[in-house]
């Protein structure tokens, strides 16, 4: 067994344990609701329902979902078995739709919103941060506090301000939904245009904050690198500035690349509030609806999906870094 295989096995085992803990939290916490969760939730859910058939259905549903008559560990086993078959239960709020179907319809919207925003924000933020560190002076004095302020504005604050300014006051862009609700989704220019117009405001509110955050991180990393001994040494050796700059930014980029991978991992859960502000049909808006309707299967479906994507992204990064990062390689060698 060589060093890398050992590392790989260890990491895989650790992530499996973490996944199990995440599943356990997801299973256990909603079941801690004071009193008998089934009757508590079912009575809340059936409030206002008059049709005795559907009330009975809700109760039976709960009985089956929660399996409250069995001990907890048996319930957890059933829960895991359902998960493996991709069964996340049935939504209460949108009975009889499957939670997995709802999530599958929401994910493309969230990814379509987040992925371009993350990439654009990452590229622009890095360029700005590197320039700020390298030039210092006026550019840095103005840009850095501005980036810091934008970055300390919560996502949703910016979203609400943009919604008000560009959406309501100037009426440039629509303020809610993923496309014009009078349209039927199809592949036509008018529909795609509508999707893009609805996409603009949520996209902008994510991208601006992402640029700010990236710029700050990149500036700090570049400053650390610029003050490193090898920079001074290269200068003393008479190596051209442009060449030294290349080394500096190459090194400063490393943690930024990790950051990019991580933000792609947190993509699904990263824009919850922003989606809510614009009623964008992604995971965030569904979670918001689920919380308001106390739709527990859907809530736990959303949280599970978000947790799992983050775990998967982290795992992928660690596995890839185990191959490419010389420091981790050295640590693997030492252990043998």
């Amino acid at each position, binding site marked *: 067994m060589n060093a890398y295989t050992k590392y790989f096995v260890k990491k895989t085992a*650790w*992530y499996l*344990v*973490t996944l199990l*803990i*995440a599943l356990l*939290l*997801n299973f256990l*916490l*909603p*079941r*801690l*609701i*004071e009193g008998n969760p089934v009757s508590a939730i079912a009575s809340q859910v059936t409030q206002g329902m008059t049709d005795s058939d559907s009330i009975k259905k809700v109760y039976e549903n709960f009985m089956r979902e929660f399996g409250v008559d069995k001990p907890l560990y048996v319930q957890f086993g059933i829960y895991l078995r359902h998960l493996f078959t991709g069964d996340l239960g049935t939504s209460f709020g949108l009975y009889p739709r499957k939670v997995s179907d709802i999530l599958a319809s929401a994910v493309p919207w969230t990814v379509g919103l987040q992925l371009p925003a993350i990439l654009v924000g990452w590229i622009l933020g890095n360029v700005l941060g590197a320039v700020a560190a390298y030039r*210092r002076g006026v550019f840095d004095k103005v840009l850095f506090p501005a980036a*810091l*302020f934008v*970055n*300390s*504005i*919560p996502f*949703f*604050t910016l979203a*609400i*301000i943009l*919604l*008000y300014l560009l*959406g*309501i*006051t100037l009426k440039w862009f629509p*303020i809610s939904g993923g496309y014009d609700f009078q349209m039927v989704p199809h592949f036509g220019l008018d529909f795609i245009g509508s999707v893009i117009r609805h996409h603009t405001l949520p996209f902008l509110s994510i991208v601006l904050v992402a640029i700010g955050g990236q710029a700050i991180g990149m500036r*700090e990393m570049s*400053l*650390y690198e610029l*003050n490193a001994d090898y920079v001074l040494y290269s200068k003393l050796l008479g190596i051209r500035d442009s060449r030294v700059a290349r080394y500096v930014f190459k090194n400063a980029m490393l943690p930024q690349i990790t950051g990019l991978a991580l933000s792609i991992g*947190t993509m699904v*859960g990263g824009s*919850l*509030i922003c989606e*809510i*502000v614009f009623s964008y049909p992604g995971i965030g808006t569904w*979670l*918001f609806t689920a*919380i*308001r309707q106390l739709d*527990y299967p859907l*809530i*736990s479906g959303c*949280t599970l999906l*978000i*947790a799992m994507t*983050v*775990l998967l992204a*982290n795992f992928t990064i660690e596995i890839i870094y185990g191959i490419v990062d010389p420091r981790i390689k050295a640590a693997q060698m030492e252990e043998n």
Partner: protein
Amino acid sequence: MSQSTRILLKSPKFLFGLIVTLLMIALVVFYPLINRGDPFEMKALAFQPPGAGLPLGSDNFGRDLFLELVYGIRTSVMVGLVAGVCATAIGLAIGLASGYIGGLADNILTAVTNMFIVIPSFIILILISVSINSRSSLIVALIIGLTSWPWTARAVRAQTTSLRNRDHVNIAKISGHGTARIIAFEILPYIASYVVMAFILQVASGILAEASISMLGLGPYNTISLGIIMNWALIFEAPVAGAWWAFIPAAFAIAVITFSLYMMNTGMDEIFNPKIRS
């Protein structure tokens, strides 16, 4: 310590952050003494624009928004402080124990810390909030604190590990001092500035976490926080009604508080990390 305080007060960034934060705190402490009104009292029609008697207009319930904002800032800052103290204390305890004791305890604590770094804390926050039916702002603050300690723990552990084998620690060990005393006198002073910085960041992220969870509709009950003001504004469609005063001031208040805390943090960073001192 007094010396570092003096250097700190020379840092414009730190000073700016400190002054703005203190002004905010002064506002929320003294304004309720001047205006003894009840923020829940309905005084006007819905969404009245700012004018005489209502400096920031009224919300969807016809309540005085400026008074609400003051109470909202108060609740949000309190939640941030409690969450920050809680998270920093847990992180410090786990990081110190893990870094100083080492061995098996270190392995277990590190594994737990890493697990909670990987499992998104916001998700745990949602799950716990959904499970608790009657949430006070104190409960919300404690939940936020309980879910946001891992980063601090990891950083404290790293620093403690590097301090553990320094000469002055070894001398203290040979002199027969107890573990508690060594940690208090030989380790803590060296990481104090870092802990204060971590605490400031934890307060800022606590305020943001409260705002996010309240926006989702899982905030504290029977109280007004900045997140709850925003939540009402969204639910009752203040933006569509054109009532900018119902949400922009609250949004701006969150931004100003977190910005001033970040500035304090950056100012400290420049002083305690001589590498980036300009």
